[in-house]
Each structure stands twice: as structure tokens, then as C-alpha cells.
């Protein structure tokens, strides 16, 4: 079974109140090294077979039409999770 991983982030120019809330909480726990946080989304799309170029193309199209809103978000990456896992294992 294959898996496609899609990362979506708020556009840099869009205020990210969630990230702002997180960065405010970090120093209260002693994590004082961080000056900014932006919170995005990770989607994992499962397929029955292998992640073929066709599957990736469909995932890219889904990322642009449903999984992100181009007014406020950027699709940062669309990748075959299996390929990444093999490399890092």
C-alpha cells in the first residue's frame, strides 16, 4: 500500500494566529530559542497499489483544488511517502 504526503502552509503574508498563539506559549515552558511559529497541515493519502506518476499527478491536482485554498495557502510539497521512508530507514 502506497502513501502520498502533502504539506500545506499558510502563505507568508497571511497572518497565522494559531502560530502566533504557539510562539507565545513556547517561552512559558522554557523554550526560548524560537522567534516565530507558523502552523500548517499535513495530509496523508493512501492508495491501494504503488505511488505511480499518475497517482502523484492526481495528488497534486487534489492538493491544488481541495486540500489548499490558493488565496491563503501554498502547497509546499507533494511526495511519495514510501520513497522517503526507504531513504531514511
Amino acid at each position: 500500500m502506497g502513501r502520498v504526503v502533502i504539506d500545506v502552509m499558510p502563505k507568508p503574508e497571511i497572518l497565522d494566529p494559531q502560530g502566533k498563539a504557539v510562539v507565545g506559549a513556547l517561552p512559558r515552558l522554557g523554550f526560548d530559542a524560537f522567534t516565530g511559529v507558523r502552523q500548517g497541515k499535513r495530509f496523508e493519502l493512501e492508495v491501494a497499489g504503488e505511488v505511480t506518476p499518475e497517482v502523484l499527478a492526481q495528488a497534486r491536482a487534489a492538493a491544488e483544488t481541495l486540500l489548499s485554498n490558493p488565496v491563503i495557502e501554498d502547497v509546499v510539497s507533494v511526495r511519495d511517502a514510501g520513497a522517503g521512508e526507504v531513504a531514511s530507514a
Partner: protein
Amino acid sequence: MRIGVVTFPGSLDDGDARRAVRLAGAEPVALWHADADLHGVDAVVLPGGFSYGDYLRCGAIASFAPVMTEVVAAAGRGVPVLGICNGFQVLCESHLLPGALVRNEAQKFICTDQRLLVENADTAWTSALTAGTEITVPLKNGEGGFVADTETLDRLEGEGRVVFRYVGPNPNGSLRGIAGITNERGNVVGLMPHPEHAVEEGFGPTTDGLALFTSVLTAGLAAVGA
């Protein structure tokens, strides 16, 4: 005149929207998200709430509901469409209106009586109002910050398509204090505040909201006949 009110899974204000339609003197028609049929209504209201639990993005999944294909087509023919709160988010996600709504700047859910400046009284939903006057209706949202790129904001302002603007402190971080906008034709209007909660004496802060629903009584029939 028959005005459809769409119910999505998670809609909350569909009942109040139908009541507002009735109090304005029109016949409310309940429309269902999974039914790709507007049942011949003369205008459509997309109500507030949390369609699909606000999952993915507010209004995103609702914008792909079967009924929305028909709403988008009807809007293209000039049929009046009003999106309130979550309905405004659905209109933006459907690309019937530009921009998007993001989490409130202060990260808090707002529930307040909100003053609004009426800036455009020429739309299908605001012709019974007067430009330059103020109305007060409830505002209740968690993700009501209107955003768009500078070019889009300039175009909206330049073309007089800002319909309502917040008066007083900006409640949710909406760029340029924009509370509601319209499309080029003026038949599609979206706003975050809730006119349907201010239509009857004794319920809500004013009855200012009723004017949106009486406005469409004249505008709608003209558009459908065109």
C-alpha cells in the same frame, strides 16, 4: 417570491434564515446540500454554522456539495445569492466571491452586537438600505478575518464592492475592516455578521437585518425575469 435556504450538515442558522425570509414576506424553501436542485427558487441564502464541522477549511467541503453546482450556475444567471457567516466562507471557497476568511486575529470566538457601515445599497440584498448609514446586527464567528491580496482589495474598493464595513474597533482582523462584499453584478453578497438574527422586535439588538431580506423581494424577481 420563493427564497431557498440551504442546509448543510452542520448548518446552524438555517432555521433563523427561513424565519427572516418569512418575516420579510417571502416564502422560505428548505434546500438540501446533497440535492442538486434549487426547486425553482427565486433567490438562495447560504446560512451560518459549521458545515462539515469546519473540517479542512471553513466552507471548503460545503463548496463542493451537489447543491453548490446549481447555486454557482444560478448566480451566473443573476439569481440573488446571500452568504451569511459560514455561507460567506462557502461563497469564497466556491469562487463566487474573492478573498478568504481566516481565524480571528485575537484567536477568540466573537459574539457581539456589531455596528456596520452600509457602503453599497445597490446590490440585490441591500437596496432597502441607505449607503452611508449604520446598522447593528449580531456578529459571531471564530474565523471571520477577511483577507485578500492588495490588488483584490483595491479592486473591491475601487469598484464599490465593499458592501459593509465594521464600525469601531476591528473585531476580527478583517483587512480594511471589510465585513461584507459583493460580486461585479451585485447579485451575490457575502457577509460575516448575521442579519437574520435581527429581524423581529424583542429578538436581537435591532430589526436592521430585515432590510436585506426585503431588498431581494424586488431585485430577485427582476433578475430571474432577465
